[in-house]
């Protein structure tokens, strides 16, 4: 007798893993976002070339050309790329893993200005400035 294995999604998300776990969660969301973005892109391109689907294609185009969508997708795609680089570097040089805490700070240090500039450009052109 006893309970089944006790990990549900919400239970797992509530684990207090702090900084590293946050990067892990953002990385997964990022991966998923990229799949959705690229998937939509391919789908829209395909549909736009067929008379029967052109309208739908244009509609999908308008979603990912929307600046709000771009703010979101750029956050996750950029985070996914930079976080991925951090992990690759740590995997290739395990000795550096001792500095994993600093690596995460460095990652945010690189991410924030790049995203900040992108955000500025996206929002400015989004608001027609």
């Amino acid at each position, binding site marked *: 007798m*006893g309970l089944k294995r006790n990990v549900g999604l919400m239970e797992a998300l509530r684990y207090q*893993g702090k900084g590293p776990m946050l990067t892990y969660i953002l990385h997964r969301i990022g991966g998923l976002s990229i799949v959705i973005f690229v998937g939509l892109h391919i789908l829209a391109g395909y549909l736009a070339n067929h008379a029967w689907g052109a309208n739908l294609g244009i509609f999908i185009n308008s979603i990912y050309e929307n600046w709000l969508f771009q703010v979101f997708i750029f956050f996750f795609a950029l985070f996914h790329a930079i976080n991925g680089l951090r992990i690759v570097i740590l995997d290739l040089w395990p000795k550096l893993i001792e500095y994993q805490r600093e690596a995460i700070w460095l990652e945010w240090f690189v991410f924030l200005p790049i995203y900040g500039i992108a955000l500025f450009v996206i929002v400015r052109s989004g608001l027609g400035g």
Partner: protein
Amino acid sequence: MEVTIKLFRYNPEKDKKPSYKTYKLEALETDRVLDLLEKVKGYQDGTLSFRRSCAHGICGSDAMRINGFNRLACKTLVRDTGAKITVQPLLGMRVIKDLIVDMEPFFEHYRSVKPWLINDDPEPEKERYQSVDQRAVFDDTTKCILCACCTTACPSFWGNEQYVGPAAIVAAHRFIFDSRDKAAAERLKILNEVWGVYRCHTIFNCTLACPREIQITRAIGEVKMALTTGKTE
């Protein structure tokens, strides 16, 4: 000070579902969460079940989720948890009763990496010599007390309990990099399997949770490297 401790409760003989019970008690800042559990069991509710043995951070039996994070109850002070404490069983394991989980899958993974010295060479007259430098290579991973704080903090393990888990890799590391041992290749082959070392996505939950402060992810990284380069020196 008065502390409120909320405990995960489940009695397989009576309860259909687990629940939480809250107890209030007087405690010192220097009390450990284990002391509080003992007080609850001794004075308020004798049915409470949890594991502990040494009470000094060395047997590894009282790992649990304290305020949402894996720790040893005997190494966690009230000073660090604050006056509100929630205690739950480890994640990713079957709960047997209250805070007691079934550790068998964990130990099965541990045994799967052959955590013992393998060397069929004839015994030397005195001892198998090892230099200070050779010993230092795996010093960190000798400190493991098999508490399972790491494995049960690992999202890859939550996702699938077939993943061998950080604790087993730590145990493997301890022998793979031991110059007296001859079975590194055999262990690396085991860790190269589908549910082996590559299920680790360098998340670090294990390292943060380890009460022995073992650089677990680094050890895993070194094992991955050994698999890539074939070098264990």
